[in-house]
């Protein structure tokens, strides 16, 4: 075991880690930041997606010792300073882009990376970028809408009742 230090959501955090300790294990068990989820073991579902030094990374496929000293942003660091939902988070809520919530942290983090790289993506670009994030609940329809809305583009409003 060696002590690993990361800057997580702007704060320096340390915890012990083995050689085999994955970033996601370090976050969930070492730092008790349980917003980052594990949905698979083959690096495909994206529920564990976080940002390492500003880039999207699957936290289940990175050894934490290998990124000692890095800056990590997790879902817990995505709200505004006053605690209100950030733009992407708010768009997911507004457009019902989540149901069970388990894939949601990874989706939000992936969406943030996309919008940083491509501020006004097309629908096809959103779908393509989310290739590494699996959602079983929403059929992606409202996730795509939420990401488009978060980029400031017009999307149809959420369903309303018959008049």
């Amino acid at each position, binding site marked *: 075991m060696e002590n690993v230090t990361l800057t997580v959501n702007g704060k320096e955090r340390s915890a012990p880690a083995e050689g085999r300790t994955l970033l996601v294990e370090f976050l969930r068990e070492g730092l008790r930041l349980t917003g980052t989820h594990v949905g698979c*073991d083959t690096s495909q579902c994206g529920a564990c997606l976080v940002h390492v030094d500003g880039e999207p*990374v699957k936290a289940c*496929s990175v050894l934490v010792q290998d990124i000692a000293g890095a800056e990590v942003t997790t879902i817990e660091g995505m709200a505004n300073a006053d605690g209100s939902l950030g733009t992407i988070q708010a768009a997911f809520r507004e457009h019902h882009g989540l149901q069970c919530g388990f894939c949601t942290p990874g989706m939000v983090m992936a969406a943030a990376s996309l919008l940083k790289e491509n501020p006004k993506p097309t629908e096809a670009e959103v779908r393509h970028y989310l290739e*590494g994030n699996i959602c079983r609940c929403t059929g992606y329809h409202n996730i795509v809408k939420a990401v488009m809305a978060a980029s400031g583009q017009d999307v149809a409003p959420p369903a309303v009742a018959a008049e």
Partner: protein
Amino acid sequence: MYDFTLTRPTTIADAVSALQGEDAQPIAGGQTLLPTMKARLAQAETFVSLTGISEMRGISAADGVLTLGGGATHATVAREAAASYPALASLAGRIGDPAVRTRGTVGGSIANNDPSACYPAGALGSGATITATGPNGSREIAADDYFQGMFATALEEGEIITKVAFPIPEKAAYEKMLQPASRFPLVAVFVAKYADGVRVAITGASTDGVFRWSEAEAALSGDFSPAAIEGLTPPSNDMISDLHGTPEYRAHLCKVLTARAVRSAQ
């Protein structure tokens, strides 16, 4: 995952030296290796991380050759090689997904030589030269000699890929059909047209791993058009048979995707 000691050298020399240790294996981006280790199908006493070696990350284009450091990530190649070698940048930019591309490296992909990986097709299709560095220094290996079958390469124990040099063709394209679960190629074809001929490298299709389709190369070297391969029988190299495709289907895709790559080559 079995436990191990992780070491993080910052120079190639230190990495090579660390790999001389008892039961030491290199790990690059880990995007294939870590899931394999989680399934307990790979283990070592010591893993030597190659991610901290800045001298292995460079990308440069000069004299018609694109040179990638072995540690260059797919995301970096997609971005920085787009101007010099667009087809290869496009290949890199379509590996896995964005998060995988942040970590995965060209050296890791070529060292592993997964029969369904993308980079082996790009390297073989470009006639790349692979620089392997080990305890006895560096040596250059031609792609044609390097890929030796499924997961088999010319790399010696203790060697790592420090550099891959891709001659830049006049035109090239990479066409792939995804295996819908893994998102690896079900079959993918890299076609590159050089002044002295055309190279066609196919991944995902054969149990022998990446291979060159020589009949197509000959036909396309004479006439670089989809029509040139219309009359060819698809390659018969031992095609993979699995849940996602029969050997016949894979062979058929080799031909379809080769034609499409020729059509989209630029």
